[in-house]
């Protein structure tokens, strides 16, 4: 089979010969499945990739990746492989597998298979060339598909987590009738600042709040954009008829606010959250009296 084919002209039979070559290639990979798979798993371990997984797991995954790989080569369609890559990523991302590891193992498989092709066709250089012509583009596409699938899955996970953190991060709490507190902890980026404002203004409306205490003890520093946004939020709240008291300003934030030239007549600030709530109660006409005092009216 070697001799006859290599002497045939090559120009007129490009596309159907590519499919024929791929078919031959797939047959070869199926035949040597066990051996190539083992070789691949061995090289993965050698290269210290996928260290988060046990040897058995690596071998099991290697087997299914191998089969999917061969199938993608055979059919030339990548949907099944894409779905598999996403599914695989979903399973291994929580175990701390890195992008370079995934790309690494796919490239290793590519190398292992290329080596086996060399070994098989080394006697017939022209045939080897044509086989590689058929194999390389397909193999590269597979590598890209798997890597992109992994990265996309990872990005999706990150997006989901960001969303979850964002939802958790800005509670608007009612402590008394007409009094809301908004404790802010952590870094405020422009997007979080926008969300914060939205939630606060909506909260003022739904809870019919008259005083709001924004506590920023947990915010170490903010840039002038965010500080400006905070000032806008305070003014917008006033337009809704609510007084805002800002508490817990760190020295750095105080400096930022002074540097951007905030009109301090528009901002009520109190040292800490307790002071802020006391001030708010005063504004609302509440008075907190210890039980003992009310029980002994002397």
């Amino acid at each position, binding site marked *: 089979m070697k001799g006859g084919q290599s002497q045939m002209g090559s120009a007129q039979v490009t596309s159907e010969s590519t499919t024929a070559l791929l078919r031959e290639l797939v047959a070869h990979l199926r035949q040597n499945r066990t051996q190539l798979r083992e070789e691949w798993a061995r090289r993965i371990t050698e290269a210290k990739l996928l260290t988060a997984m046990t040897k058995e797991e690596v071998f099991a995954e290697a087997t299914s990746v191998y089969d999917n790989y061969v199938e993608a080569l055979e059919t030339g369609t990548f949907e099944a492989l894409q779905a598999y890559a996403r599914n695989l990523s979903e399973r291994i991302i929580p175990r701390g597998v890195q992008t370079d590891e995934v790309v690494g193992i796919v490239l290793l498989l590519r190398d292992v298979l290329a080596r086996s092709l060399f070994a098989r066709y080394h006697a017939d250089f022209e045939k080897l060339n044509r086989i590689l012509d058929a194999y390389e583009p397909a193999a590269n596409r597979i590598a890209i598909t798997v890597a992109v699938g992994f990265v996309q899955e990872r990005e999706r996970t990150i997006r989901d987590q960001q969303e979850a953190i964002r939802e958790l991060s800005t509670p608007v709490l009612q402590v008394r009738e007409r009094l809301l507190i908004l404790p802010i902890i952590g870094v405020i980026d422009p997007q979080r600042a926008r969300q914060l404002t939205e939630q606060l203004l909506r909260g003022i409306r739904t809870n019919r709040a008259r005083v709001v205490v924004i506590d920023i003890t947990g915010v170490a520093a903010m840039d002038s954009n965010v500080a400006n946004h905070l000032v806008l939020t305070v003014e917008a709240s006033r337009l*809704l008829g609510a007084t805002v008291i800002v508490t817990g300003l760190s020295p750095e934030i105080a400096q930022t606010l002074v540097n951007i030239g905030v009109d301090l007549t528009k901002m009520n600030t109190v040292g800490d959250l307790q002071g802020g709530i006391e001030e708010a109660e005063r504004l609302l006409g509440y008075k907190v009296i210890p039980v003992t005092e009310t029980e002994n009216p002397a």
Partner: protein
Amino acid sequence: MEVPILKQGPYLIASVQSALTDADLLQLRDALVEKVGRFRSRGVIVDVTAMDVMDSFASRMLRDIAHMIRLRGADTVIVGIQPEVAFAMVQLGLTLEGVATALDLEEGLSFLDQKMKKVGGEVRTRGR
């Protein structure tokens, strides 16, 4: 569209029903300033719940109304500014400085009641 102005005890309530043109705003200003004197009102409430846009002219006009009514001896409260409108306004620098605001009509009325009480208290102290 002309804004209806209702008399409610010592207060006047102007309830904006739709988007206002500049001419409507001028008309509202003139009517309110005139009626405050005629009815000897102590407070004015302008309800803007129905306004979903507030441009610089409208907010300047509201501020002018409040200041003119102050000079005529009454207090003004702007009520019902929507959250989105409020934030858009402050972003444009339209903060209605020096003008009282409240969440809705009810809050506006209680704000004016409070203010009246304070004034009333002063009068009594002096009489004693």
